[in-house]
């Protein structure tokens, strides 16, 4: 294989990977976007309850020429109460932009801000969404 063909193969593989990731981010779930990344996530269990531990399955897809994610942090706060969770979520990378966060627990009813920090090339994009527990 010539160098030119190798480069072409690598570019094709990269393009296919991005396409696959983009298709993955069309998967069912809650979709969040920043300028550089898409995060699609689902909680386990699907319906959250106050005082019950839950996990999050997340898929991170780079947009355009953005670098693949190097890591993901997951956290949550209650902005009106000025506090976060009493538990630190652990996040495990499963490959292909997939992550599993475990150990989350919302200990109060009200508005929680769920935070995803996508790490890439020394910086992080923060994607956030509201979850209101009654």
């Amino acid at each position: 294989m010539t160098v030119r063909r190798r480069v072409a193969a690598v570019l094709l593989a990269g393009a296919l990977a991005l396409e696959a990731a983009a298709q993955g981010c069309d998967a069912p779930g809650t979709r969040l976007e920043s300028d550089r990344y898409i995060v699609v996530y689902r909680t386990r269990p699907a319906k959250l309850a106050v005082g019950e531990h839950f996990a999050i399955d997340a898929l991170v897809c780079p947009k355009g020429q953005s670098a693949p994610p190097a890591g993901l942090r997951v956290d949550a706060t209650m902005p009106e109460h000025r506090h976060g969770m009493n538990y630190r979520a652990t996040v495990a990378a499963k490959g292909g932009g997939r992550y599993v966060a475990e150990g989350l627990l919302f200990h109060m009813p009200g508005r929680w801000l769920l935070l995803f920090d996508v790490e890439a090339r020394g910086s992080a994009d923060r994607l956030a969404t509201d979850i209101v527990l009654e």
Partner: protein
Amino acid sequence: MTAARALVGAIAAVAAAAAWGQESVSFTPPEVALILRHGPWPQPAPRDPSNRVSGNPAAIALGQRLFFDARLSANGAVACATCHAPAKAWTDGRRQAAGLASLDRNAPSILDAGRLRWFSWDGGTDSLWAQALRAMLDPREMGAGAPLVAKVVRSDPALECRYRVAFGGSQPDDERLLVDAAKAIAAFVETRTSGRAPFDEFRDALTRGDREAAARYPLAAQRGLQLFVGKGNCSVCHFGASFTNGEFHDVGVPFMLAPGRVDAGRHGGIKRLLADPYNLLGKYSDDQSRASATKTRHVELQHANFGQFKTPSLRNVALTAPYMHDGRLATLRDVVRHYSELDLERLHTHGEQLLRPLKLSDRESEDLVAFLESLTDPRATAPPKAARPVAGCKPRVR
């Protein structure tokens, strides 16, 4: 019944009561939704996967005997029941508990303790059996060691028989037997659940749309309930059917014990928990999946934990005076006054922004007390039934 149907029924009940001219507080739909979250009650007793004898009748019978047995203390005079007396709603009525020595904190009731996530005011233990174990070992409480507990169980034929039936025929070493004794006590404590209170009748009447039953709930308690879920914002922490979210908060109670001595509360509790060989991550948990240890694996030590104490359940609160983690407040009126006149200067500067002085009128304070009193199960101070006989074991202990 779905939540939506229950809410419609509840609103209909309140509206109908008002239309018939019965004395009733007019609750808004959001208030009704919050009220319904505090039930139904009672709820099924959960089983503890970390305790292989949770729910086991022989273990419960053994645990009941051990709970009242002062031989498990270093001086032979202190039992679990010393600080958790049935006639006092399973507390001791003292400002601060006293075992072999005086303690810094108030003894909480064990009623409904099987539903808790964390144990002790600082959450320093993560299972009911680890909490029982800690009380037995603490030199200020019962001051027992594994050899003493093992000797008591092995040398008493009635206890030894029940132990054998509950745990099988193995010959455990002293420490294993100590842990098993704690698990038997936990199995008994799990059975100490509170029954229905007047509030539960009102709450369920709302759910059914039964206006006549709802109207039997005292008007002062209804007004107090409205404050509880509304202006008071109490139900944010005293959440759900157990009236606690099971977590920890700084509510402006001083944590200075004496010059140079502080009670670090949850901050110290997490440190203690993570250093505890009997926590749910350790070898004594019977939960092979370790799923029940999720809380322990993920709990986070934060600076804001300093001076935080666990939100207590409010069920039977009228029977468990004095109040707060150090028992400094003698009556429910004192507690209501504490929140009404809250000193914001006492709150942790890094803490949450939940509390503000409620500035309640005298009538509002009385109404809130009336509501809290309506959380009382009339049978909460009844002695437990005699321990169930265990096949093959003689009924009498000593």
